[in-house]
């Protein structure tokens, strides 16, 4: 009973947005709840028919994929070293990375912006990709390190006896075995990048590289009186994230709980 009520509250805003997208703005004020009198698909098709929405989607995708590849590759190397090597300064280094977990991004936003400006990375996708990867390192390293430690030491001995170099072992044995963990951290990185708003807001001063969250905000500003159109745009902007979630739910939740309990 309680669940039904909470469930209804959770669904309502989303359902309301979907239905409103099929109405005209006039109908929205006369008939806010009911099913649309006439299912107008115009709001949706208009957005999908213009290139703008697709460009935002492309930008978001490119930035998310690049960030993920970078952060996972670099973190995997570092996590391997933390997990399988004993060397002087290991704990200090690891502590340096883990302290990164408690800095909110906002603390570094301003100097980061100035740094990117002096490097000429404003309005360049790298200006978002590199910092996102850097801020994703702590969590990714912690999760992967925990996973790499569970790989039995005998495997490593066997590989070394067969003449495997440390990197050879990492590349040929460890990474293929760590596929599930790599999947988990990749999903986390994709979602984080996809939803980032603050950094693209700072870095992209013109609309060439805007991502979806920025696009939605701008669209609302532009068509503030045309509620129905804004709703349609919102719904379309949510679809990719929700679709991705329904496919990668397990990895995402696994990653979050692993990160939270081991962080």
């Amino acid at each position, binding site marked *: 009973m309680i669940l039904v009520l909470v469930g209804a509250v959770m669904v309502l805003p989303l359902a309301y947005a979907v239905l409103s997208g099929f109405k005209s703005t006039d109908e929205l004020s006369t008939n806010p709840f009911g099913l649309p009198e006439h299912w107008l698909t115009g709001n949706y098709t208009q957005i999908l028919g213009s290139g703008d929405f697709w460009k935002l989607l492309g930008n978001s995708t490119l930035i998310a994929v690049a960030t993920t590849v970078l952060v996972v590759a670099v973190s995997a190397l570092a996590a391997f*070293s933390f997990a399988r090597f004993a060397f002087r300064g290991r704990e200090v280094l690891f502590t340096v990375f883990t302290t990164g977990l408690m*800095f909110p991004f906002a603390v570094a*936003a301003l100097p980061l912006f100035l*740094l990117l400006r002096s490097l000429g990375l404003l309005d360049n996708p790298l200006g978002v990709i590199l910092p996102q990867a850097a801020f994703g390192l702590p969590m990714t390293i912690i999760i992967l390190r925990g996973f790499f430690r569970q790989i039995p030491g005998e495997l*490593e001995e066997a590989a070394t006896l067969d003449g495997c170099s*440390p990197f050879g072992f990492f590349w040929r044995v460890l990474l293929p075995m760590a596929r599930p963990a790599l999947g988990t951290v990749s999903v986390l990185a994709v979602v984080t990048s996809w939803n980032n708003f603050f950094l693209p807001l700072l870095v992209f001063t013109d609309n060439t590289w805007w991502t*979806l969250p920025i696009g*939605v905000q701008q669209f609302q500003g532009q068509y503030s009186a045309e509620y129905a159109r804004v709703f349609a745009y919102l719904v379309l902007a949510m679809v990719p994230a929700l679709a991705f979630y329904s496919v990668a*739910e397990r990895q995402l*939740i696994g990653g979050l709980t692993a990160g939270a309990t081991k962080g």
Partner: protein
Amino acid sequence: MTSTFLPDKRSGPDVALPPPTADAARGRARRRRLHWLTAVGFQLPALVLFIVLVLLPILFALYAAFFRWGGFGMPSDYTGTDNFTRLFQDPVFLGDLWRCLVLVGLSLALQLPFALAMGVLLNQRLRGRAAYRMLFFAPYVLSEAITGVLFSMVFAPDDGLADHILGGIGLGGVGGEWFADPSSVMATLFLVMTWKYFGFHMMLYLAGLQSIPAELTEAALIDGAGPWQRFRNVTLPLLAPTLRISVFLSVIGSIQLFDLVWVVTQGGPDHHSETMAVTMFQYGFKRYQVGYASAISVVMFGICLVFALTYQRFVLRRDLEGATTTMRGDGT
């Protein structure tokens, strides 16, 4: 669990113990150095990224906070602690601190207990359990900016969904201004935050609940403990590590709130929903008082640091015992 990439412990054909000569000692030292270089070599890419894009900016903010500076060239007009004195006399910033406290308080008093209740409910065998779980967690994957736009429409004054619903159940006068009224703006924002984030905390609790051995609850049942006693004396203590982490994440999240506020209210009406991050953004990117804005960053950093350290020292201590040496720091 042991690593074979340990210096001088390699079992290979090349490690028959050499005769103890100065020559061999040098060789060993060289091998040890090589080993260290290999280990650190793997760290290098991550270190470079992290130092240049995370640590340096934060250190630079620490430096710039002591200057009057517009953000061009290098800071040169040294003003000592003036920025900080001004900051702690700035009514808007003091309001930010207060609002931050309010959000933390509301989260701990309402959002997390609600998430816990839902987690306990969904931990039972119910029809449609998976569907509810999926639904409650779904908003977490939406961007805060997109969530903000959605709810600015839902709570549109007099014409949004919320007012229509209240009107429909005979509470027509209750709604109204929502985000536009200083007295209700924070509460409304908190509602949106709860809609978006309680599912995340619920998921953490569910993961924790599932790791509680069934025998324990059964034993309590046999001992004649009622549902409340079982929850109070078995579930809650065993869930403590998860709760502590969840509280930590929730507090850090409240301190850095930006996206949602920026999209919905930009801190208005009249600063009544401004957060530290929003104030910092206003001064740094709109008014070009970069030194002053840096001081805000530094205070934010300080608050996070002090909170994290005291929290670790007093609350997480048992969970983290030996966490740097084993991955069994999560109390299992």
